[in-house]
């Protein structure tokens, strides 16, 4: 059959010898094995590694995820223009931060009848629905960031405010007073600015330049509300 084939590339030249003439000399069935594994040694090692995450210990699974979360925390604390938060997004970090913040901000169940601070569910709803609203707003304005990437960035950038909450609770143990309040105010303002800078570093590039302020303002409002809840927290 090789003789019948003609290469379409040469219209004019009619070679007297048929193409692929040497092939017919080779006996296919015995000399060339046609079955076997097409594997590259390194590739097979990686495939083995991937499939064996089921067999690894729970400790290494958790540590791997915790290390990823910790790496992103470092990126938030020292915001540089990097892609790590966007490329390997995950929602574990935001969940941990949101739960921690909501646990610390909720009012005691003793005075739940009186009009007091937010409940756990209220903080949770504010954080997650606020983040979803900001993401929708950013996408509607024409940003080219994906939904979960934006949620991931907004969630991770709550880290400075969670640290502020921890510091505020420690400071409040010293007793109320104007000095106490000034210290808390200063800490919250610094952490608020840090959150805004961190999230803008990640999010601002995804917007067209003539709408950047429109996309950043809701982020400002979001972190402002969370800072307000932290600042006005009074232990019962």
């Amino acid at each position: 059959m090789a003789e019948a084939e003609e290469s379409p590339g040469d219209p004019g030249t009619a070679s007297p010898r048929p193409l692929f003439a040497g092939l017919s000399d080779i006996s296919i069935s015995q000399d060339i094995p046609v079955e076997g594994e097409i594997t590259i040694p390194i590739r097979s090692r990686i495939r083995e590694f991937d499939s064996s995450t089921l067999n690894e210990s729970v400790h290494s699974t958790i540590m791997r995820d915790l290390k990823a979360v910790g790496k992103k925390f470092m990126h938030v604390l020292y915001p540089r223009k990097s892609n790590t938060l966007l490329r390997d997004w995950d929602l574990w970090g935001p969940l941990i931060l949101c739960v921690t913040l909501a646990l610390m901000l909720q009012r005691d169940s003793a005075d739940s009848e009186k009009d007091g601070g937010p409940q756990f569910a209220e903080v949770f709803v504010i954080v997650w629905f606020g983040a979803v609203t900001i993401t929708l707003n950013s996408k509607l304005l024409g940003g080219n960031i994906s939904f979960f990437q934006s949620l991931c960035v907004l969630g991770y950038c709550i880290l400075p405010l969670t640290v502020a909450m921890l510091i505020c609770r420690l400071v409040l143990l010293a007793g109320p007073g104007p000095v106490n309040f000034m210290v808390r105010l200063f800490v919250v303002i610094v952490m608020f600015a840090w959150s805004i800078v961190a999230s803008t570093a990640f999010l601002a590039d995804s917007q067209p330049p003539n709408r950047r302020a429109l996309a950043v303002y809701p982020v400002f409002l979001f972190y402002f509300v969370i800072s307000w809840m932290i600042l006005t927290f009074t232990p019962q």
Partner: protein
Amino acid sequence: MAAVDDLQFEEFGDVATSVTANPDATTVSIEDPGETPKHQTGPLRGSGREEDDELLGNDDSDKTELLAGQKKSSPFWTFEYYQTFFDVDTYQVFDRIKGSLLPIPGKNFVRLYIRSNPDLYGPFWICATLVFAIAISGNLSNFLIHLGEKTYHYVPEFRKVSIAATIIYAYAWLVPLALWGFLMWRNSKVMNIVSYSFLEIVCVYGYSLFIYIPTAILWIIPQKAVRWILVMIALGISGSVLAMTFWPAVREDNRRVALATIMTIVLLHVLLSVGCLAYFFDAPEMDHLPTTTAIPNQTVAAAKSS
């Protein structure tokens, strides 16, 4: 050749003559009016073909003109449909906010700033900012008023945020809905010059609420006179924006109906601002302090005399 003569292209010479001849015909405007007289002077056959070509060539421009008029062509279940409501740039939003702060008599907010590009960004985020501004300012002003009292324990009244959100968003969306329905109903009875789409009315209401954000922040000052002056100023500005926007829409109507409509719009606005002031901000009870200082004096005097 008779067949070709039958297929001769008709000269659409004067728009005016063709309109008078056939008033129901839609006239299509070709982009280069300067070229059509030239074609008319040429030979009929050639001019026919060239005009044919020109109509075909300019078909795209006609289509783009038609499409530019109707922006929202995606079906409502796609994401692109909602993106058309956020098609504004930063400077446009700032211009619209400026327009709501400086009502110029005679200039219509919708016609000047919004025309055929209503956005939902402004109304939504202005309302959100206003909700938090009112809740936070109310909380802060209550804290400052009751600062010296020993019996007062500060609570961040978080429930008020949800109440404020309900009130403000209901006002910003339900009142425009009612107004739009009312205007449509009157429009069917009376031929109005100006009619607004629902989104344009929402836009006007949203941007007119912007003045309340600095007003709410300034309401922290615990002086009754200051607060009422601020209410007057804010009502004056936003009320006049609304009145000047909707006056052309009801002007053609029965005098009484028009005046009643404008009065209702302004009245609802007054209710919103006064209601927010009354509910979220405690009255600055400056007269409580003298009584608390007077009572110990009386008890001391009574103890001395007895």
